[in-house]
């Protein structure tokens, strides 16, 4: 095999950006209410230039306040979740690792439910209570699962981790149900939390997501080489001079923060973190210097398109996005898997 350049060329990044931008424009132009393309684009341009909007058209009240923030949030959530999935799969040398299979998402939503049920809030920032608890619980559950896994099986085998993850997911959701049972009047509202909804995403949500993604994403991307070493084996990583403990902790903290923020904005969305890295690995190969950036863009595009389906297929009704991601994701996954095996 020819020696390949490790990372992507700048031109490739331009291509990725172009694809993502195209998906974004497509998702902003299509929606539950069909608006003339001209109106949509004019609205966007006017909003960007700060001009007054056409009062007779419906587009200004739909595109800018409702559709754009949602698409932006969806893109960020997709990017974050699939980046987390790729990083965890590398770090734990485990093809099934992902926020949902490892119980991190359930942990995060348990945190969010506790914040809602007991009215935990950060003074001055109404949105922050659920986010902070979701992050803390995401990190706590990750530590707990890995800690217990180490005690049982220091090689951290796939089976042990997945088994513990599933057990922890059940545990966390039973505690959530328990809290919901005693939350009385708030029961109904909290129940929706567990389903997750991207409706009502605001620019504030998007800002929080993008800042988090920029910080944690940059840190994760910078650890591509270390993750390559981990993917071969933890001992190997140690032998070639990777500061194993610190790298592990850094990656886990970044993953928890990302998943925690995503869960607090959109609820748990399964399958994105698991499937997108696998699909992309077929294109990029296993090198994390390529896989991680590809996951960011691939995850964003995948979730934006999934959300587009969720918004439009049954219009005026809306599907939970998790239904679409699981349905489409599993079919695509099986298809890619068979094609690559069959060759």
């Amino acid at each position, binding site marked *: 095999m020819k020696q390949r350049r490790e990372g992507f060329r700048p031109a490739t990044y331009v291509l990725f950006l172009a694809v993502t931008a195209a998906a974004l424009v497509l998702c902003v132009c299509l*929606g*539950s*209410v069909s608006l003339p393309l001209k109106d949509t684009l004019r609205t966007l341009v006017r909003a960007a230039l700060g001009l007054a909007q056409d009062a007779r058209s*419906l587009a200004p*009240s*739909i595109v*800018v*306040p*409702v*559709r754009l923030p949602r698409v932006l949030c969806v893109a960020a959530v997709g990017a974050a979740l699939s980046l987390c999935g790729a990083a965890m799969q590398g770090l734990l040398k485990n093809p099934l690792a992902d926020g949902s299979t490892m119980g991190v998402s359930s942990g995060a939503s348990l945190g969010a439910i506790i914040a809602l049920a007991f*009215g935990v809030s950060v003074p001055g920032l*109404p949105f922050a209570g659920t986010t902070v608890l979701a992050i803390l619980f995401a990190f706590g559950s990750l530590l707990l699962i890995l800690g217990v896994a180490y005690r049982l099986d220091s090689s951290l085998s796939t089976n042990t981790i997945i088994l513990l993850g599933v057990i922890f997911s059940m545990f966390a959701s039973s505690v959530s149900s328990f809290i919901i049972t005693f939350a009385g*009047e*708030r029961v*109904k*509202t909290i129940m*929706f*939390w567990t*389903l997750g*909804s991207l*409706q*009502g995403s*605001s620019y504030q949500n998007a800002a929080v997501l993008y800042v988090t993604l920029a910080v944690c994403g940059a840190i994760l991307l910078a650890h591509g080489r270390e993750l390559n070493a981990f993917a071969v084996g933890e001992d190997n990583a140690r032998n070639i001079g990777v500061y194993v403990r610190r790298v592990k902790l850094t990656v886990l903290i970044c993953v928890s923060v990302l998943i925690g923020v995503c869960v607090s904005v959109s609820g748990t969305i399964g399958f994105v973190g698991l499937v997108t890295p696998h699909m992309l690995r077929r294109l990029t190969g296993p090198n994390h210097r390529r896989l991680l950036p590809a996951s960011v863009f691939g995850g964003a595009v995948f979730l934006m398109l999934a959300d587009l389906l969720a*918004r439009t297929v049954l*219009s*005026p*009704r*809306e*599907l*939970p996005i998790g239904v679409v991601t699981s349905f489409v994701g599993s079919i695509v996954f099986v298809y890619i898997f068979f094609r690559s095996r069959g060759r």
Partner: protein
Amino acid sequence: MSRKIIALLLAALLCVSVLAGCGAKQETPAEDASPAEETTPAETPEEPAEETPAEETPAEETPAEEPAASVTVTDMTGREITLDGPATRVVALSAADCEVLCALGCGDALVGRGEYCNWPEEILDVPVVQSGADTNIEQIISLQPQVLLMSTMAQTEEQVKALEDAGIKVVVSDAMDIEGIYTSVGIIGKLMDKEEQAGEIVNGMKSTFEDLKAKAAAWEGDQMSVYFEISPLEWGLWTAGTGTFYDEIANILNLKNAFGDVAGYAEISEEQVIERKPDAIVTISMYYGEGPTPVEEILSRPGWDVIPAVANEKILNLQNDELSRPAPRLAEGAQMLYDFMYGE
């Protein structure tokens, strides 16, 4: 070593909990079997499950002190149910049945309620039983009701059979429309020997609806549209389409349901609400006394200012399930909606 001990402890715990469950089940029917046998004359005509359990006497039908003539009702699945006399101990799983019972003045007969039964306030002291998939048959049996009221969607066939084997008559009231409410009020009225009151309730409801319908039909302005918000934006918008009580009331009141093209309760897109520009919004979100009220929250949604309901602040917040339950209170809900839409 220590693992073994833990395993043993867990096993022991498991045994104890299983036994505890059985104990509770055995105790209650046994305790009450003796007085029941004394008072029960031998002429119990329909007791099919008499001899099934071996040692423990099954919870028998305890007829009222002065046994009235037997009561036969046909429930809303078409099953015929016969009781020795009017029911005096009833468990109601659905919130609507609880409301009907209380409207009939039989709140005292309620010995157990489903978890969503919350109206009127005085029934909040009645023990709660699990309903739906988690229905706790043991718990219901231990309350010794003669009748269990439920809606079809709440229970499975197996659960119904288990209850009937325990001698509890299961009556299904599953009103899907206003006509259904009249039927269910009639059935429960007959069960409780309150047929007269049942008739009054039904007539009262009918006259309220007719009155409102006539007044609304006389409205001279354009037909107004209303959007029913079942779940707020934060959790994903849900609305009530055709086949719901909201929709039926809207029709009576000469209002156009903004989502009349959607069947049942459904999650809908925010964009659609903005496009359909309803004249009024009815939200059923609860207010917990902190943050913006449901009405303020709707008024503050970006992009919604083009909706006439938001521009004119025509938003009604119903917090007590006035329009969602197949119960007599639906007439009050309709009146509230009428007053809100057309003003006094």
